[in-house]
């Protein structure tokens, strides 16, 4: 038996959230006294695959079929199921991403396994097999027992360190799951990647700079973008900002938007409504800049400045420029 980790690629590289999943998977393997194998497909270089050794992966199974270049749930599920069977995997690990959670859920049915998503801890394996997951939109945690023989875990992003055993490489083997056209009924007609200012994906960003209605209008967003660029951060916004089309919807964080859990979340001109907090409250450090000292966001913050964003943010941008990086 072994632990199997599904890794996702983007532009030839492995996504950070998948490196976190790989690190998690190899720690689980160690606890269980076995090894961790990764399964991959699509646009990932051989070099990037071999480098998974640094995260403790000993072997990578790669399906080089061109049909797998783009994400198609049914086809990906087929490949991962084949790898799981070949490796006799009893624990499968994914990133809790739109792709990872989707294939994880279908696999739970196919492999008759137990699934936990949004997982924030390593499993406890003495006695029952349990993990802790984030629930109630980040306002609580739940310990869940996975009762089936096969356990499937989707780990929350930005929650586990990427381990680095420099120089260790994984062996890469070919795998073919014989994907046919019948598996490709939901193949995308078109894929459109967003302009990510500075190339940082919001869902994976270590730092997020976010703006609310207090910024008065889209013409002032250079404040958010400039600060984000200096800090290597992704940009985000509150719901009304997306609803008014000041910013695209894929930047809207909160209860009905994206959930982020960066190391640092900087909220500028956002009041801190409970629905907004639901999407950001698992951030490790929260900074709030608001001209109203009574803004509820200060209660959830670690650092704050009571002041006018139009005066404060330019000073922050200058100070960030002066940092040696």
């Amino acid at each position: 038996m072994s632990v199997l980790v599904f890794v996702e690629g983007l532009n030839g590289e492995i996504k950070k959230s998948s490196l976190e999943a790989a690190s998690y998977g190899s720690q689980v393997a160690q606890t269980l006294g076995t090894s961790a194998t990764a399964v991959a497909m699509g646009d990932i270089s051989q070099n990037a695959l071999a480098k998974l050794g640094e995260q403790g992966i000993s072997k990578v199974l790669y399906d080089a079929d061109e049909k797998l270049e783009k994400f198609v749930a049914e086809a990906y599920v087929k490949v991962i199921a084949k790898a799981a069977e070949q490796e006799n995997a009893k624990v499968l690990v994914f990133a809790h991403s739109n792709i990872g959670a989707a294939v994880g859920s279908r696999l739970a049915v196919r492999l008759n396994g137990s699934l936990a998503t949004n997982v924030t801890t390593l499993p406890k394996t003495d006695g029952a097999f349990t993990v802790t997951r984030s629930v109630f939109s980040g306002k609580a945690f739940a310990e869940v027992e996975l009762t089936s023989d096969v356990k499937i875990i989707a780990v929350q992003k930005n929650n586990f360190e990427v381990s680095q055993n420099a120089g260790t490489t994984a062996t890469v083997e070919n795998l073919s799951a014989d994907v046919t056209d019948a598996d490709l009924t939901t193949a995308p007609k078109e894929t459109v990647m967003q302009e990510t200012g500075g190339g940082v994906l919001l869902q994976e960003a270590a730092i997020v700079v976010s703006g609310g209605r207090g910024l008065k209008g889209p013409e002032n967003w250079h404040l958010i973008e400039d600060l984000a660029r200096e800090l290597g951060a992704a940009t985000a916004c509150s719901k009304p900002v997306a609803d008014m089309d000041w910013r695209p919807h894929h930047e809207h964080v909160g209860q009905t938007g994206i959930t982020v859990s960066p190391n640092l979340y900087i909220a500028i001109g956002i009041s801190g409504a409970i629905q907004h907090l639901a999407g950001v409250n698992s951030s490790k450090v929260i900074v709030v800049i608001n001209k109203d000292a009574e803004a509820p966001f200060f209660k959830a913050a670690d650092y704050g400045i009571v002041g006018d964003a139009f005066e404060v943010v330019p000073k922050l941008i200058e100070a960030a420029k002066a940092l040696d990086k």
Partner: protein
Amino acid sequence: MKILVCISNVPDTTAKINFTSDNTAFDKNGVQFVINPWDEYALTRAIELKEAKGGSVTVLNVGEADTEPNIRKALAIGADDAIRVNAHPKDAFFVAQQIAAVAKENSYDIILMGRESIDYNGFQVHNMVGEILGIPSITPAFKLDLIDDATARLEREIEGGKEVVEVKLPFVASAQQPMSEPRIPNMRGIMTARTKPLKVVEPSGAEAKSAYVSFSKPEKKGGVKLVDADNAAELITLLRNEAKVL
């Protein structure tokens, strides 16, 4: 066009989250329950499609009798009829089995629901239903249109972008903003909802595959450290040297 919309009954978004004294269950005391906000996007889009193309919208909830006010609310918003599977929703797999059992009996063209519930945040049920029924699941989708009677066009979010997918009916999709603008029931809707059919069925004999052992809340923050606005640059120094996040 027959559309099934699955809704879950969740604590209001402003509810205080507390647990029973032994921390084994959510404390419902004094909590107002609402239709899961993500499900409202699915419900409204389903009603819009029905208004444009004809057909019917059925709402489905797996829950005990206390969820009926919100099922009635979905009927008031514009669904035609409702089914409640009379069971405590033990876990995502259990719920997916119940939905699939109802779907097998009634063969819907489209099965819609929200991307996740705001209480258990699973992001699982839609894909499980797709797998059990052997049909595509397109999740999370923020745009859904019909090309013709047999094909739909969806846009789904992937990290860092979107994919445009064309798919033959039947399929499952989960909804997120901005798929539609959720509606508030009007007086006429509320009146007619009272007489619309709400069928209660018993669960099929499915097992859960996970069990909630206990709940806890995150540690309270130590309080905010304020930096003077005139000295804003100090914040960057603190973030680097004290918080160590830069």
